[in-house]
């Protein structure tokens, strides 16, 4: 490879070219643009944008913001003796209970599980996404379809299938027995929960990683190699930082549903250890303690929000 093949890079100090696809708000024409006209055009654009977004805006407010507000209001209410929520005598008792040792333990356990799930998903997905992104267009499309095929069947059905696979009559156990070993069962263990979560959420990690890697300008890696960086250094200094948006997006998409996972721990873990999702459900359905269940839900959302902001900041720094 010769130096002449390196794409021309702008000299340091010049502003980067505008990203493609974004409308250029200030056309650099020779004609003088009056400030009034410019302002009017901006207003018109804002109005247009508002009307285009209106349906989804109404949808989100009615079906997301309003219910969320109701949950928030309920979290300060009281449970009466029959389990009905009384919307008076507002108090912070439910939030105070969040800091009891038992709740904190459940919370930390869920946090740990979500973190491990995210880490495993990332470790497995990155090489895979890298592989897909570096294939030719045909193979790439086939592989992408394969990643998405599991979505064609219901998540619950797929989790049930894992019950069979991990059960004492499942293929793993039968292979072990055929080799002269003991029958064994992963079902109803924490390992089974981890397998189920990683299986279920891996596509959410692969797809954003793929999107980030596919967009990458591979000439930059070539440049790094030309400058005597070894493979690992080129990856660490060029590829990884450039794929950070994918890592951040994928991690958030995996971490958040893992933290509140309910179906997988119940079906594959046998609900033997209490996790946040199970605990919240039991507050609503068994204890009929809606205020406390609402406070728990808000606490989970708060932690997710803080984690997301923190993660985005950390991700942005490396960019």
């Amino acid at each position, binding site marked *: 490879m010769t130096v002449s093949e390196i794409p021309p890079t702008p000299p340091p100090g010049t502003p980067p070219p505008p990203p493609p696809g974004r409308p250029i708000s200030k056309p650099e024409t020779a004609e003088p643009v009056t400030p009034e006209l410019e302002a009017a055009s901006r207003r018109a654009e804002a109005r247009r944008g508002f009307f285009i977004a209106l349906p989804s805006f109404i949808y989100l407010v009615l079906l997301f913001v*309003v219910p969320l507000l109701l949950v928030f209001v309920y979290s300060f*209410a009281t449970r009466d003796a*029959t389990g009905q929520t009384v919307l008076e005598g507002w108090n912070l008792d439910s939030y105070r209970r969040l800091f009891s040792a038992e709740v904190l333990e459940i919370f930390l356990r869920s946090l740990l599980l979500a973190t491990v799930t995210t880490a495993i998903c990332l470790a497995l997905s990155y090489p895979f996404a890298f592989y897909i992104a570096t294939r030719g267009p045909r193979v790439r499309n086939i592989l992408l379809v394969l990643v998405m095929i599991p979505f064609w069947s219901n998540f619950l059905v797929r989790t049930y299938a894992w019950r069979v696979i991990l059960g004492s009559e499942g293929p793993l156990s039968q292979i072990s027995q055929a080799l002269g070993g003991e029958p064994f069962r992963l079902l109803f263990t924490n390992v089974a929960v981890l397998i189920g979560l990683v299986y279920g959420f891996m596509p959410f990690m692969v797809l954003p990683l793929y999107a980030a890697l596919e967009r990458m300008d591979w000439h930059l890696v070539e440049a790094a190699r030309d400058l005597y960086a070894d493979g690992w250094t080129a990856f660490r200094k060029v590829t990884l930082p450039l794929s950070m948006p994918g890592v951040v997006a994928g991690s958030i998409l995996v971490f958040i549903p893992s933290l509140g996972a309910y179906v997988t721990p*119940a079906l594959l873990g*046998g609900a033997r250890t209490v996790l946040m999702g199970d605990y919240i459900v039991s507050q609503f359905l*068994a*204890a009929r*303690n809606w205020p406390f269940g609402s406070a728990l839900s808000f606490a989970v959302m708060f932690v997710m929000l803080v984690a997301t902001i923190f993660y985005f900041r950390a991700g942005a720094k490396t960019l």
Partner: protein
Amino acid sequence: MRLLARLIASLTVLAILVAACGGDDGAEEPDGTSAEGGESPQGATGAGCALDEVDGDLNLYNWSEYLDPELVTAFEEQYGVDVVEDFYESNEALLAQMQAGAVYDMIVPSDYMVGIMIQNGLLAPVNGEAVPNLANLAEQFTELPYDPGPEYSAAYQYGTTGLGVNVSAVGEDFPRSWALLFDPELTADFPGGVSVLNDPREAMGAALKYLGYSLNDTDLEHLQEASDTISGNLENIATFDSDQYDEALVAGEVAVSHGYSGNMIVGIGEAENPDDYEYILPEEGATLWIDNMAVPANAEHPCTAFTFMNYILDAGNGATLTNWNYYGTPNEAAMEGVDQEVLDFYAPTFEAEGLEIIEDTGDYEINFTDYLAQAKG
């Protein structure tokens, strides 16, 4: 943008108003009769209905697979009305719907939920004149702790919560006791371990019964003992499960399974070797649960509802119902028509002692959830 901000603000205010209004209604209902008297349709619900009178289609809110479709068709033909059936999965979901203002002519809540709904003013009194077949109910189903009288409900079907046992796995001479779930030495030999209901009242109730207490016991020390009993055998409790307990049993995944009679009996009946399994009620006693027909206070067609109640309580129809859904019938007059097969299944229930109905324990209720969570660690 200002328009957007205003829209958010007004919707927020609307949401808070809705919440606040809902709250006022909810708060006033329990103290009862004055509110009902003020709104005439509630106070008058079904009071003037005559025998076999219908005042519109029947909107029925029921558990799924609980009502024989042929009984529905026959009712529709006989009275010239349509029956529209919706389904719920838990008493709590039913309560939430009714409190949110859902309108049905008949609902089928379980025992403790009938008590809660009465306290919250959600049910209309049963009009005895329109339901003469109430006389068909066996005596024990007319003396109920949750609805003395009974004034607001009529028993629909009943069942128990007991144990499904894989006899080929645990051996012929197993103890008929909750030790099958909680004794570490006994259960250590069970291939696959045991399954316990993931329901705080049932799981803690089973442990309380094992210790010799009532399952409605409200002594925190006893509850702590029960919690320790469960945590002491976590090693052999393979799963806490309220949905697949019958499948797990017949698939050989667990040797003993804690579950509800109807599902367990149907599950065993569908197994490859039904004779390998047995449904038992532990000697220490177990849960008896009763589902009840009730007419909500806001029913639009109460007369049709009472006519339907009377129709289900008919001797012949009661037998048809039990032969179809395999649950116990509270209808004494219907017993003659019940298949021997179903009677055999329920024989242990008739002989069992120490059966108890779960009662709502009020403020104490949240402890069951907390102590089960604590037991799981």
